[in-house]
């Protein structure tokens, strides 16, 4: 067993180069895994999963009458990113989130970028995430998107690409924190040898960010996490974050707006709330302004928001920049607002909205991945090479009927990481979701969530379709820096 017989399969492998030599930064971990007997590795894999179950790191399975809860499968081989590579990702994410925020703020005010013809006006204003209700709003500090979970992938050329920006309610950060706890327990020595950048202070930074957003003069602003409720698949995370930050977890029915102030119903009467970290979509937050059939929302919330009496993370309206057709223009935004070239590249994207692109997409459906612009999480997409002739033809008709609603990208050869399968290691495809907090300054959590497609050959990393996760280690590499060891 071990890595002698490991096969990178012609893909970019995060741990080994094509000659099966360990990449910089992973030597310590490879040594450690080589030195442990197979039985021991399997035992640690099992005890890691057992620990996650006992800690209640579960998601509920919809439609399961038994009320079964399952863990998000976890693999013990970490995904390792050397510090020098990470520095570039971090710089790229900061640049990107800065430009995206400037874009959203511009869009809901002067719309300069549209007037200057950088992005077609109809394209932006027809995005389903565009909220005319948000025109003229001024969120604290001019920041709209405070919490982002950008999806990155590494292609066959070894470069990182941005796949989705996720500017609404990205989830998964609780898995990062709990995976780390479990890995520290399971492989303390490998962990120690690798000098891994810590992620543990994320809840603390998140709390600071939320408190920073408060517009009240109260010495200790009241901050709460707002969940759609126990039946939401991410409920565990909402509850976990509230617990870690030591703040209330509220549902819509706990909140009421009185004289343009958001109050929560407590056993000693109504208490004002200054900041809401809402894990609920724009559509549902206020039935007076958005969907009037929302049972989850708080009538009057937007009045309080406009009056500056409550802050929301993220601000309403950020979804416009999540539109996959708008995504295609992010490099132009970076050039326009920051006068810089994008550090992180987009995946090459065809906008079916453009005639030339549409023809190309329809002619190459068997090679492309086609996506609906307003969807995320792998919904509503066609993976051309894996689809049948009939599926492609039907999907092609949908695209022709409403080209604005579709984009297409080449099928990516996602990078792979060795993964413990039965009694040996096999390469499995991964993506990466780092989390970015934008408050007084921009913080990028070192690492993030690595999702892994556990099915052989699969490119789908979503938990509902056989995906799992790995701990992500950003490690120091090479010789000790000038001025001595920073550790």
């Amino acid at each position, binding site marked *: 067993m071990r890595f002698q017989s490991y096969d990178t399969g012609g893909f970019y492998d995060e741990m080994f180069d094509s000659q099966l030599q360990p990449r910089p930064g992973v030597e310590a971990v490879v040594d450690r895994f080589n030195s442990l007997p197979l039985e021991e590795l399997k035992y640690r894999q099992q005890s890691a999963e057992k620990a996650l179950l*006992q*800690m*209640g790191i579960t998601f509920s399975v919809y439609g399961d009458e*038994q*009320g079964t809860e399952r863990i998000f499968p976890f693999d013990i081989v970490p995904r390792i990113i050397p510090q020098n590579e990470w520095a570039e990702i971090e710089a790229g994410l900061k640049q990107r989130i800065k430009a995206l925020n400037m874009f959203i703020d511009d869009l809901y005010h002067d719309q300069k970028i549209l007037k200057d013809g950088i992005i077609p006006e109809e394209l932006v204003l027809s995005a389903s995430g565009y909220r005319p209700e948000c025109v003229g709003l001024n969120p604290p500090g001019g920041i709209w998107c405070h919490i982002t979970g950008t999806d990155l992938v590494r292609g066959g050329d070894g470069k990182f690409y941005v796949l989705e920006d996720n500017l609404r309610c990205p989830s998964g950060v609780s898995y990062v924190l709990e995976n780390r706890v479990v890995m520290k327990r399971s492989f303390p020595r490998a962990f120690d040898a690798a000098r891994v950048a810590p992620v543990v202070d994320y809840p603390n930074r998140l709390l600071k960010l939320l408190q920073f957003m408060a517009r009240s003069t109260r010495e200790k602003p009241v901050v709460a996490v707002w969940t759609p*409720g*126990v039946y939401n698949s991410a*409920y*565990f995370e909402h*509850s*976990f974050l*509230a*617990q870690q930050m030591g703040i*209330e*977890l*509220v*549902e819509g*029915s*706990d909140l*009421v707006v*009185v*004289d343009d102030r958001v*109050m*929560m*119903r*407590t*056993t*000693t*009467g*109504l*208490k*004002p709330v200054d900041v809401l970290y809402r894990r609920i979509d724009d559509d549902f937050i206020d039935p007076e302004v958005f969907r009037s059939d929302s049972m989850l929302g708080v009538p009057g919330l937007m009045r309080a928001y406009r009056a500056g009496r409550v802050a929301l993370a993220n601000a309403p309206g950020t979804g416009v920049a999540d539109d996959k057709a708008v995504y295609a223009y992010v490099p132009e935004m970076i050039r326009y607002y920051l006068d810089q070239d994008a550090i992180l590249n987009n995946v090459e994207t065809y906008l079916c909205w453009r005639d030339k692109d549409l023809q190309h997409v329809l002619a190459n459906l068997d090679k492309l991945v086609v996506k609906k612009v307003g969807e995320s999480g792998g919904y509503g997409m066609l993976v051309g090479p894996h689809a049948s002739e009939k599926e492609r033809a039907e999907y092609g008709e949908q695209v022709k009927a409403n080209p604005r609603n579709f984009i297409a990208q080449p099928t990516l050869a996602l990078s792979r990481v060795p993964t413990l399968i039965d009694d040996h290691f096999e390469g499995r495809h991964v993506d990466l979701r780092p989390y970015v907090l934008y408050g007084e300054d921009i913080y990028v959590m070192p690492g993030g969530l690595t999702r892994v497609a556990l099915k052989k050959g699969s490119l789908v990393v979503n938990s509902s379709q056989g995906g799992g996760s790995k701990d992500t280690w950003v490690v120091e590499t090479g010789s000790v820096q000038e001025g001595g060891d920073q550790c």
Partner: protein
Amino acid sequence: MLSRVAESMYWMARYVERAENVARIMDANYHMILDLPTGIGEQWEPLIVTTGDEELFKKHYSEFNEENVVKFLTFDTRNPNSILSCLQMARENARSVREWISSEMWLQINTFYLLVKGASRRGGYIELPHEFFVEVMMASHLFTGLSQNTMTHGDGWQFARLGRMLERADKTARIIDVKYFILLPSIEYIGTPFDHILWGSILRSASAFEMYRKRYGQVVPDQIIEFLTLDTEFPRAIHHCLIIAELSLRNISGTMRGRFTNRAEKALGRLLADIDYTTVEDIKAVGLHEFLDGLQTRLNHTGEVIYETFFSIPAATAATQEQTQL
């Protein structure tokens, strides 16, 4: 604390307690039946009367026999007070306060639910009733013990204990009332050995037989009523439950005994004060059934004002309420 959280804590504990009591009543009945002479007829109807769901039972079943009654009270999810329904509700309440309770409590309430859910899949037939019902009661004790020892005794915990104690007081009152009026007045048994068995079954329904023996020795009806109603130290006696419930309520607001700051404290404090100065002779003078009936009405009223005081805050009073906090 959030009203919703307080309410969930309160109901989580109430439902676990309710499930435990249903199990205990059934277990005591099985024991009693085995001791009765053949031909007397099994007593299953009183169990349904005890839980107060006669009408619902008649809607779904035609006969008060063992099979129907046990199924209705244990596994039937059409009955909101069956053990399984109670545990479903307890678990859903626990889920919505997961960040408040300890992980041990969450684990135990899951295990508890899965125990009964698993048994329900075997077609509703219980091979060894005693073993099963004891398992249910022990699972409830374990949950309560974990609450006691792994969770901060703050407001949330106080609301849970308040709910548990009010539920227990209500169930003990029902057990005495129903057994006394439906089971016992079969005149021909009075003074026979069966009389003794029947009275013993009342005590067993409240897990009180041994503790009663230690206290009073002989099985004497008046003393049994006194023990289950007015004892201050036996944990299932109504008086004891009210003392603890009132203590939790005052701990929540920080009010001294003998005073009140809200309607819930007033209702429960007044009820407790009445019981404090009640003797078994007073109860007999009013009539046992009338006494218990009045007690249950007042317990229900207390539950309602607790709801109005803590769980349902009308938006209209917002401005005034916030001012009083400044």
